[in-house]
């Protein structure tokens, strides 16, 4: 079929165009800062990618930020997934009275822009000693991950026949037991999907990091990258580009390997 060949060649052509910025990023991050020539952006030279990354790791204490972001993007989604599942469980399995409105309340937390909470959070965090702390960052990242998690889990649990719950009740199981031993194990795929989506979102967050943290060892990694760009952009461009790769690699890799989860998560109603 000719249209098949045409379609494939169009896709290959645009695919290559799409990869050009990535090509430029990689070859220029690979150049040694000493031999860097800003007029030869398209020509690969040097083999300094690793040493540039090592320098970037030290610059602005990027290493500390990587560690912080790792903590945020593991701990917060983990809590959010469980809390969101509990909300879904109460509404669907326990048939909570006015459950739909409780759901709307929780889900509504994701609708408005973050700008709406920044200043009071900054103000409140400063007064309560949560500003520029790991705890503060974990709390805020957890809270913003809950609405989406509750949304997906409610949808997921709706697909489980209520007779499953009733049978467990007849067997004398408590609600907590049913939640932890019956419903959660059935929902592993959805839980993992939410976890991955939220981890990616938190890793890539800039705004909350910019507003609620300050010191090198609390600041998340994208916020640090943003700072590096303005501080070292001219003189050590190849190092900053290497930092960009370092920061992007985990989420890009995760996204590539878990496309299935992502598409399933999206089909379940991400955002």
């Amino acid at each position, binding site marked *: 079929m000719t*249209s*098949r060949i045409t*379609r*494939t060649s169009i*896709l*290959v052509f*645009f695919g290559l165009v*799409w990869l050009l*910025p*990535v090509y*430029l*990023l990689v070859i220029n991050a690979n150049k040694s800062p000493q031999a860097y020539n*800003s007029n030869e*952006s*398209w020509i690969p030279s040097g083999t300094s990618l690793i040493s540039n990354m090592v320098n970037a790791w030290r610059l602005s204490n990027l290493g500390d930020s990587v560690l912080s972001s790792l903590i945020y993007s593991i701990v917060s989604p983990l809590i959010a997934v469980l*809390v969101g599942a*509990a909300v879904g*469980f*109460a*509404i669907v399995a*326990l*048939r*909570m009275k006015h459950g*739909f409105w409780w759901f709307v*309340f*929780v889900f509504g*937390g994701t*609708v408005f*822009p*973050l*700008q*709406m909470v*920044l*200043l*009071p*959070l900054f103000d409140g965090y400063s007064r309560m000693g949560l500003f520029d702390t790991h705890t503060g960052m974990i*709390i*805020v990242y957890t809270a*913003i991950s*809950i609405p989406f998690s509750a949304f997906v889990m409610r949808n997921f649990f*709706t697909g489980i026949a209520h007779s499953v719950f009733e049978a467990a*009740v*007849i067997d004398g199981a408590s*609600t907590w037991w049913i939640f932890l031993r019956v419903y959660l194990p059935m929902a592993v795929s959805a839980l993992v999907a939410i976890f991955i989506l939220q981890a*990616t979102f938190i890793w*890539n967050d*800039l705004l909350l990091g910019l507003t609620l943290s300050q010191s090198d060892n609390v600041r998340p990694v994208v916020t640090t990258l*943003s700072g590096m*760009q303005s501080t070292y952009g001219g003189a050590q461009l190849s190092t*900053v580009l290497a930092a*960009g790769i370092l920061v*992007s690699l985990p*989420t*890009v890799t*995760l*996204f*590539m390997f878990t*496309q299935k989860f*992502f*598409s399933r998560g999206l089909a379940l109603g991400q955002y």
Partner: protein
Amino acid sequence: MTVKKDHYRWAARSFVAPGVLLVAVVLYLPLLWTVFLSFTSYDGLSSPKWIGAANYLQMFQDPDFLNSMSNTLLWVVGTLVVPVGLGLVLALLTFNLKGGVWLRLPFLIPYGISGIGVGLIWSFVLQNNGALDQALHFFGVVDNPRWLLDAPLNTVVMIVAAAWQGVGVNALLFSIGLQSIPKEPLEAARLDGARGFRLFGSILWPMLRPLTTVVIGLSIVASLKTFDIVLGMTKGGPGRVSETLALTMYKDTFVNSQYGLGSAIAVFLTVVTLLAAILYLREQLSKKNEF
């Protein structure tokens, strides 16, 4: 056995409590406080003074705000045309295509990159005498515009960067939609000789409509919040010419310490976002409001 409604009242409450409390304290409480602050004069040190709608009046007379508003509008329109339109085209091109999953991969890579990462790459490409200018020189074009310095061109090129990042995920969403279309009407239409645009117009497009509404709603809401890419590429400059509402709010609040004005911008942005969100929320909730 039938479980009576409300039999598990207290159990249910204990299950929703953590979620409801966290969302209430970390999101809703600050939200209400921002609404209050938008009617006050506040610098973070002394207590807020009630000044009525003065912040809003000041906001709508502020040329920086109005410029930021028109930039944001450009973002909304731009991200509808480019990433959503192109996403649909990509999904159609890969639909039922052998190896389509692999061919979609280059478009998905940028989605994993943060806004700042995307900004870093593209400001490198677009800077004066950067990669793009060098390529154009090579092909004999010498009189290049200053991509990131002239408005509104800088907003346009930033929309291109955002499209580069976002097109893959829209393609993925549309692909899911296309795959969920039942095979029978498609086959019937094919047997009747429908091909290409006819097949698209009479079968695919009507069946994709609900999903398209969702993708458009998501795209509008996301573009209204545009912040990272602009901060990463122009910092809203030169001066304040390429700011978006989200960035203007941030700068007025945290750089200029005009807390009341910043809050008023946040409220305005939220009202506009909510209006757009209704577009896709209606679609999302109407399908599943059986409780």
